């Protein structure tokens, strides 16, 4: 999947992946795509909750080899 910006949140623990993600989204234009890679297992539920509450669209999330990848679209 194509993206406009990638955030490496590997090795970070709660709530840093969400906080860094918020910062990265602020640097994007509405409709642009952010990809986040994290290793915190808690981030799976947290990113879903984050998107639900902020209105950014979670396009996909997948887990592989202990890494969690989230792709989200910045809200209009």
């Amino acid at each position, binding site marked *: 999947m194509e993206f406009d910006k990638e955030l490496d949140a590997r090795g970070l623990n*709660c*709530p*840093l992946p969400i906080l860094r993600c918020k910062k990265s989204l602020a640097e994007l234009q509405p409709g642009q795509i952010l990809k986040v890679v994290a290793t915190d297992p808690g981030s799976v539920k947290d990113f879903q909750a984050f998107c639900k509450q902020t209105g950014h669209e979670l396009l996909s999330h997948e887990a592989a080899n202990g890494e969690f990848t989230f792709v989200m679209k910045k809200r209009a």
Partner: protein
Amino acid sequence: MAKKLALIASKGTLDWAYPPFILASTAAALDYEVSIFFTFYGLTLLKKDISDLKVSPLGNPAMPMPVPMPNLVQMLPGLESMATMMMKQKIADKGVASIQELREICLESGVKLIACQMTMDLFDFKREEFIDGIEIGGAATFFEFAGESDVNLFI
């Protein structure tokens, strides 16, 4: 309309400094308007230098220790510093944010930090001992925002 979160931070140890700053920074990331009222020992979390925050295993039986340690041993000089050093090392190893970093993010994201005037008087704290960007107020100031908040927590 944005949701609102009101916190009272009343404890000033390294471990108890985490909940208010984690919740406040995360809530701000979720577009909440956040205010924290720092009172009693919690007020020390607004000091310019918070590198000396400590955690004590004494009277804290739930704190995981490498070896079981009776209270009588924990009260020995240096034990608290050692426990604090070990905790800070663990925090760094596990990719957990430092209190300084979380506080910085709170300030950047517009979290309102309110210092309790009464506590400042009580402990003879001076305004210049605290960071910039904070407000000073009393119990009525807390209720001004707590009364219209969606979530209120005492920590």
